């Protein structure tokens, strides 16, 4: 039962969350809800990336008592995706904050959070 391994489960969860996030973005009318959906989407990507880097039954990529410099290659999980995720998390937070600021700004102009009220530009 290979799908019972943790990396499969987390991968599947990530992909599901991805879809749920997308669904939220395209179905919710409220701008804040859209942003929340985006943050779900963001989290899901992190989860997927970490799952990608996971190697069965290996430990964290830190040289310490458990893992020595010499046998690191056989004992640790892939550190690279984790590095990517670190970067992605911070980017995600920046983008989310930016979206929220935009939402705030839009709200202060038009007093509504309905995205389909912002259609003065079209065609």
């Amino acid at each position: 039962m290979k799908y019972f391994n943790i990396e499969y489960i987390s991968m599947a969860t990530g992909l599901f969350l991805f879809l749920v996030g997308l669904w939220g973005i395209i179905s919710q009318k409220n701008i804040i809800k859209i942003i929340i959906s985006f943050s779900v989407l963001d989290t899901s990507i992190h989860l997927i990336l970490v799952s990608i880097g996971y190697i069965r039954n290996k430990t964290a990529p830190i040289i310490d008592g458990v893992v020595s410099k010499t046998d690191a290659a056989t004992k640790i999980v892939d550190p690279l995706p984790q590095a990517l995720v670190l970067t992605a998390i911070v980017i995600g937070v920046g983008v989310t904050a930016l979206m929220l600021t935009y939402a705030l700004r839009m709200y202060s102009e038009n007093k509504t959070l309905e995205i389909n009220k912002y259609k003065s530009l079209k065609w």
Partner: protein
Amino acid sequence: MVNPVYIIAVLLSVSFLLGLFRKPGSDFARLAALITLAFPAIVSVSWLLQFLGEPTSPFIIYTAGSVPPFSINLKMGIEEAFLTSAVNILGFFGFLYLYRTFKESGVSAVVLFLVLVMGLNVVIMTRDIFNLFVFLEITSIALIGLIFLKKDINAVSAGFKYLIAVSVISTILLLGIGFIYYFAGTLNIDDFVSKNSGAVKGMSTAVFLVIIAVLLELKPFPANGWGLDVYQSAHPGISAMISAGMATASLFVLYKILPFGAVYWMQIIAAVGVITFVGSNMLGIAQKNANRLLGYSSIGQIGLMVGIIGFSPMLGKHLWMVFFGLFISHFLAKAGLFWLSGMIGKENIKSWSVLRKQPLLLIAFGVFAFALIGFPPFPSFFGKWQLVMDLAAHGQFGWIVAILLGSMLEGVYLFRWLGYAIKLDVEADQKLDLGIEKLIPVGVFALMLFGASHFAIENVPGGLTLNLIPVYFILLLFVLDFLPAKIKNSIAILGMAYYAWLLYPSLQDDTLRLVFAGIFLVGGVLTLFAGYSVKGKRAGFYPFAIMMYAGLIGLVEAKNLLQFFFAWELMTLGSYVLIIRGKKSLVHAYNYMLFSLGGAYLIFLGMALSVAGQHGLSLSLLNTTHFPGWAYTLLAIGFLTKTAALGLHIWLPGAHAEAESDVSPMVSGILLKGGAFGLIVLFLAMGAEKAGGHPLLYALGWLGAITAVGGNLMAVFQEDAKRLLAYSSVGNLGYILFAFAFMTNVGWLTGLTYSINHFLFKTLLFLAIGGVVMRVKTHNMYEMGGLIKRMPWSFIAVLIGIITLAGIPPLSGYAGKWLFYNAVITKGWYFQGAMVFFSGTIAFLYCFKLIYSIFLGQEKDKFRKVKEVPVWYILPQFILIIGIMVFSARPDLVLKPIGALLSQAGYFPTDPLTWENVTASTNLGYWSGYKIMLVIGVMFVTLLTWLLVMSRKAQKVKQFNIVYSGERPFTPETTHFSHNMFAPYYKALGFLTIPVVTSFWEGVNSTAHAFADSFRKIYSGNGQTYIAHILAYIIIVYLIIF
């Protein structure tokens, strides 16, 4: 060389430090930023120069003291050097443009701008896909921040839509990158390509996600509403950065990651690009908002470049040349246009007429517009040329059609726009935002287009064969435009005369070409004489007049297809500007341009078909084309747009009639022969005599006959003198087409005689009538009358002109008629021949109307003081009259050598015209122009003497001394029978003049607009819908690929 990483380091550290200068006022910060931005530009340009100087291997920038697959590396090769140069120059001038805006916005925006430029540099240089992701995010976010430079709600909401869309796209990109890493075990682009692990299951989907994300960043049609909104609402200076800068980087990203995908994906990418190009331009035609329209155009152009990247396997080593040509034109022109838009400040494209307050800006607008469409000498012309040629070589004709269709649609709105700018009234309250910091970028970019042209010419295959002397002469005239008109006129005339002298030896033996060269150059000089009567500067006239003539003469000189098409487009461009100078020419010049553009693209397509499967560019490739049917038909229709065959003629009457007095003869008497010469080239290519039975020729023969009747019939019912002459030109070009379609020796002689005649008399008539119109300030013939007393010289000119036109012996018009009959009977095209004859008699009607209504009949009170037209109009007229006389008396001087050429060069050896002294004869009949002239002359003089003797005491009487039922007529107006002169004729045959053709084209026009208008509703303005579009786009492309 400076390590390119310093570009990043300097930009970043300055932007970090600028945060400190928030309080003391931002002047220092702005200045520092501007100076800082010069640094990357200098660095990357110096790299570019080095790579151009000697091809060396790319410079790799390693980071972290490690080597590529493990650490991030950047690359500076020639491509990167070029693109970063572009981006950094754009950055510098873009910043300069926004210099004042930044004062109001504060330091934050300055910082954002610096980071944006930095990000673009890294995106171009990096070789690591995750790094790519990070810096794409940086550029997107910086742009989104900069959108806020305009603080209205539209900008904010557009920014939000953009932000959401970009975030979703980059999430998908990140997903793809993650899986690529999983399957390939690397993030390095070069490493990935060398590992060649595309076959792994799941890999292709991962790669798909990455590529589709990058494609979506490039805003493919129709999943691009978010991009359009930003183009529309952002500060134009920022839109310029998006359109030019961001697109540059994204395009290069696409190019970098392209090797990831399977080869057949190229087709998909090409399709994505071309569909974007066509679709976006299609929707653009219904758009009136300048910035949004520029957005449509940008997206379209970027789509085309995506297409080029998709076509890269077919382009081979030409890829960079093609890309360069189209890219640099888009880059410079679009940035320039957005900047101009910012200076105008109003949204409707009609407001651009304010540019007329600053002629230099108007020129810049023209340069940008022409560069976008792809007119020579701009690089896009060569890019498009080579693209089409290479596609043709691979048999991709569907794509060529699509690309040309897209270009055509782009022309539809760009020329409407340009026309508005040139012609519409300036709104009273409108101001131009002129700051030196705004003018410099626009000017520099316009000039750089010319530099880029130079580069493109050097690199396109066959480009070095182009004769650029006329182009330099045109540029010289641009520079000298500040001089008074008279001096420029002399320069132009001398230039043309000198060129004619230079050219003559090379054409001496080829009489066929010599005739046309003569028409173009001699005619050019003669028509320019009229220009001496213009006072003032006549700004912008001479460069374009010379451009038109340069194009025409280029046609004659052309030895290969590129030269021919180059000349053709040059001619179109010049004549368009000449035509639009007329007071009411807005819509006519627009029609002219659209038909010309359509025609040019058909020619282009025809040429592409001709060279397909063959090598080189020589004109003789037309002879051996593998697709004769299509190629010839397309070329023929293309040339027919210029000769205004019925169905394609609707641009002509207005364009010729509303042009300035001395422009009408240029565009009518001379320009139309360009199309005729094109037909000659085509027909010669069709293999001369053996093609005589070609169904195309048969069709063209009928078309010529119908055009002759239609054009002349329309002319009969005109009240506008110049319009009458214009329709007459339609008819006459019908004759010419008909005659050339014979493909027999005598037929061609007929065609050439008609061509020469039409040149002589139509130039003469338009000069004369133009002069009259200039004096009386109306085109309506019924308002004139009796002007023979005021303008006797003009009257004589018109009289000679119409005698020639009507083909009455002894003048040379008859030569054409006689040859024509012989040709018709030999060929056996009796019914068409009868139609053409019928049209000849109709011509008589309007000839009479023309001369009677203007010069005879009752003189009007208001014109009793008008003077004869200026001597500079009379002079060329009488030179032309001398020409007519000489040609009438001694047609053998011209026709004999041509006939000899036609039969000896192997074109049409059978049934030639035989000459015995001055008498020509065929199997059917004979004709001696010289003797006829002599007989008639002697007889006329004798009879005149007889009458003079008999009525020597004739008494001159006053105007109203006529037998008028015993009364004196009230006013000349009521006594001058002129308006609706041929009413009974209209009753009888007017049904033939119902403007079905005009209605047809209007129908086409309104259908296209209606389609565009309804289809663009998909851009609902709802950001969420745009996301749905993006997802749908991903899914659809996925389903197509897999």
